């Protein structure tokens, strides 16, 4: 691949910087202003100290600041820091000169190379950008060095760059800022990787090193970081929507007399999603919405409840699945000759993402444009959706991404639900004012797009040595992709991979494996939730394998190791976690230790959990020791933070989270009923990484899957009770 191809992710682009201009002009009208500037304009821009584009990812200012254009949404996982690190590394820049900005919607330039579309998710941000951003940095560096070499009349190879300062043995010295203007006019180097080679990993000064602080540290600790909730445009109205209490419900009629009396309420409009109250302030909009009287038409609504759904799922796993996701060997034969057969059934509830910042979106709709400002996670879905609603062309829809107060998957939606809602409101008022749609916490909790509920049933056969010979695994639940625009791409032969991932690719060497799926249709929208299918499959596989180890009378770590002989990454993570945790020590009565190891998003994370059964029979999680195999570690502290956060996120859900419906209505609303993990629940978490020189893999999600099963296995160790239904809830335990 040429450098240009590597930067563009294989998109056909011409081989000069002009090539970028052409693409930018084609799909990102009016956004990539700097790219379209000719040398004359560039000179004036430079005189003003503005940043000069070197390629779609790197700008350098005459004042020396290097701006990295970040193509991924940063909802806390740190890709902003990571991508800036890749550029700084290849440019030999000083960390203090790095700046970042979020990329506009432009899939030609800013596609996620793992998706071939612009979006953030699947823990792909760093993995898909690994070569692309380093290439962009190396290219910019080469151009700056060439400009210096030209000016100094020396060979490029004699120039050394360190911390953004160029030096030549003759004593000549300069900064990137000084050469920014001249360098930005040079053609980008073209050709093979050899012409602008990446740095050899042995020369890394930033990648993999400790002590590099998050680039968003400052603005997020002084109140200046701007989130969607903080955006204010001239004449903007805040919209709060009365949504139907049941999914699929519609407005029958509404009475807005009282709502209109609320000071500050300006407009009230009906949209397909409900009734929107628009006001000059958020509080007026909330008050106006509360004063609305809406009669709902539930004729087409989902009116069943969680008990119905779980009964349906349990029934489904008691029979053969309607689709087969995996079949190796012959499970029936395995059961015939088995020394022992173990069966277990599991259930999992709906889960809400509950990002700290409830959903929101700003839209400024004009006659021939729509400008959106929000934490955009899936531009390639949102942009055409907005275009379809407004009748605009996709390129007339511009998206400005700002910091997102968490997402955990919720901001990337195949239906673009909340973005579409904001645009519907803007359309209903004919773009008379910019609109900021604000969901309250209750709107967010009750708004659907949950992690689907599931039931699993597993039947496993052991041979006379206690090793598994057959594994029949039935899963029933809703499909995330079914019924969406992505169904054709993601559902194959009736199998939505996100329903079975983590089981269909079972890591343990079991000769016969059969995974069956029954996809249930329920009128509650569902979505990926941090680590997607692994949120439930890891729990089943890892508690089941623990149960098999006990049935075989073997140590759970050794048993796993024996079955993971051909999985070096699993082995390395498991060994490291077990070692660091002191696996094998005897614990006092009332304490328990459990382990789990799971691969997701190409990374493997093992966790060892220590718990204590409290005098009241409740569970206290004391410590989690985690080991992650994530390939090359780009920022060790960000990796640790993601595992710490993943542990907390998964733990909160395992302990007490469930969205339940009764008669079609969601029973939880705010944090008093959908109870988040709090600081007093948080265990001490230690995170280790397995040394590796392989390309980096994800870490935004892989810390989540092992925590629930490791906790369940620890509870078993302390109490002899298996945890097969999540969450734990108010259950009390007795130690043995």
């Amino acid at each position: 691949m040429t450098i240009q191809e590597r930067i563009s992710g294989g998109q056909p682009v011409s081989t000069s910087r002009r090539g970028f201009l052409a693409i930018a002009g084609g799909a990102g009208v009016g956004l990539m202003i700097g790219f379209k500037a000719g040398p004359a304009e560039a000179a004036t821009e430079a005189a003003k100290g503005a940043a000069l584009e070197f390629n779609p990812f790197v700008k350098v200012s005459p004042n020396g600041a290097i701006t990295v254009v970040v193509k991924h949404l940063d909802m806390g996982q740190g890709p902003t820091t990571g991508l800036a690190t890749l550029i700084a590394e290849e440019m030999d820049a000083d960390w203090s000169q790095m700046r970042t900005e979020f990329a506009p919607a432009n899939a030609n330039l800013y596609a996620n190379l793992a998706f071939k579309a612009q979006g953030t998710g699947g823990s792909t941000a760093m993995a898909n950008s690994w070569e692309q951003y380093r290439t962009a940095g190396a290219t910019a560096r080469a151009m700056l060095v060439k400009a210096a070499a030209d000016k100094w009349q020396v060979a490029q190879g004699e120039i050394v760059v360190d911390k953004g300062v160029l030096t030549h043995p003759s004593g000549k010295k300069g900064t990137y800022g000084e050469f920014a203007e001249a360098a930005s006019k040079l053609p980008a180097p073209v050709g093979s990787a050899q012409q602008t080679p990446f740095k050899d990993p042995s020369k890394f000064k930033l990648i993999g090193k400790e002590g590099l602080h998050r680039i968003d540290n400052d603005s997020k600790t002084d109140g200046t970081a701007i989130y969607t909730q903080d955006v204010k445009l001239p004449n903007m109205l805040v919209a709060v929507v009365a949504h139907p209490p049941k999914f699929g419900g519609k407005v029958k009629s509404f009475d807005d007399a009282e709502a209109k009396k609320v000071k500050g309420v300006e407009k009230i409009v009906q949209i397909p999603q409900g009734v929107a109250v628009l006001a000059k302030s958020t509080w007026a909009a909330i008050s106006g919405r509360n004063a609305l009287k809406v009669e709902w038409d539930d004729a087409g609504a989902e009116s069943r409840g969680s008990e119905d759904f779980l009964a349906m799922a349990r029934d489904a796993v008691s029979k053969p699945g309607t689709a087969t996701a995996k079949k190796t060997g012959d499970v029936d034969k395995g059961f015939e000759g088995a020394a022992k057969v173990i069966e277990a059934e599991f259930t999992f509830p709906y889960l809400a993402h509950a990002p700290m910042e409830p959903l929101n979106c700003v839209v400024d709709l004009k006659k021939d444009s729509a400008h959106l400002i929000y934490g955009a996670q899936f531009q390639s879905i949102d942009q055409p959706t907005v275009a379809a609603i407004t009748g605009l062309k996709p390129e007339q829809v511009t998206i400005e991404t700002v910091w997102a107060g968490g997402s955990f998957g919720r901001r990337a939606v195949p239906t673009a639900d909340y973005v579409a809602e904001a645009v519907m409101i803007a359309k209903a008022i004919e773009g008379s004012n910019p609109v900021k749609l604000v969901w309250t916490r209750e709107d967010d909790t009750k708004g659907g797009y949950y992690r689907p509920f599931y039931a699993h049933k597993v039947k496993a056969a052991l041979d006379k040595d206690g090793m598994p010979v057959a594994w029949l695994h039935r899963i029933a639940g809703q499909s995330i992709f079914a019924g969406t625009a992505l169904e054709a791409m993601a559902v194959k032969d009736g199998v939505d991979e996100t329903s079975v991932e983590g089981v269909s690719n079972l890591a343990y060497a079991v000769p016969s494996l059969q995974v069956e799926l029954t996809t249930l249709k329920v009128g509650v929208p569902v979505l990926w939730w941090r680590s997607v299918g692994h949120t439930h499959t890891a729990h089943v596989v890892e508690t089941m394998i623990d149960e098999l180890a006990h049935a075989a009378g073997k140590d759970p770590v050794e048993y796993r190791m024996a079955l993971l002989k051909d999985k070096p990454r699993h082995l390395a993570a498991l060994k490291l976690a077990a070692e660091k945790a002191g696996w094998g020590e005897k614990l006092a009565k009332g304490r328990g230790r459990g382990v789990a190891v799971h691969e997701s998003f190409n990374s493997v994370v093992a966790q060892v959990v220590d718990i204590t059964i409290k005098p009241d029979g409740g569970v206290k999680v004391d410590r989690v020791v985690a080991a992650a195999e994530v390939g090359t570690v780009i920022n060790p502290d960000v990796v640790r933070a993601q595992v710490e956060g993943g542990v907390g996120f998964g733990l909160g859900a395992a302990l007490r989270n469930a969205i339940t419906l009764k008669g079609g209505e969601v029973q939880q609303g705010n944090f008093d009923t959908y109870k988040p993990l709090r600081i007093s629940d948080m265990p001490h978490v230690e995170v280790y990484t397995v040394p590796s020189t392989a390309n980096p893999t994800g870490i935004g999600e892989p810390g989540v899957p092992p925590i629930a099963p490791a906790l369940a296995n620890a509870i078993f160790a302390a109490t002899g009770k298996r945890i097969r239904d999540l969450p734990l809830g108010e259950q009390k335990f007795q130690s043995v």
Partner: protein
Amino acid sequence: MIKLNINGVDRDVDVPEDTPLLWVLRDELGLTGTKFGCGVAQCGACTIHLDGSPMRACQTPVGDVADSKVVTIEGLVAENASKEGKAVQAAWRALDVVQCGYCQSGQMMSAAALLTSNKPNDKDIDAAMNGNVCRCATYQRIRAAIHDAAKRLEA
């Protein structure tokens, strides 16, 4: 008109007295560092100091604070800020506490208030900080950063 004292500056606002202080700060005064997370005193994202004590701005009617001194995150870390505010900010940065960052203004406000009393242990921290939710679960670092800030205040 309601007269307020925010971060040492007198401000006049023309809003109904029962408007939560949170929305006055955010929508009327442009002080958006104070966040909206729940609106019902369940998450602490809106924590401010009212005469030095941590309060949930979403449950504080603006009419009740006319005679009080309000400090927000912007005031907590300003040039002439309290030593607790500075120590908390330095510790938060040193330990890279933030992830999405949305809860952190509230976390820092609660932490700074806690640090005006004796050097806290883990139990004190859990008790004082339990009303501040972090969906990114940065809790372990919050604990460590409060200890770090306490050390900075001793030095």
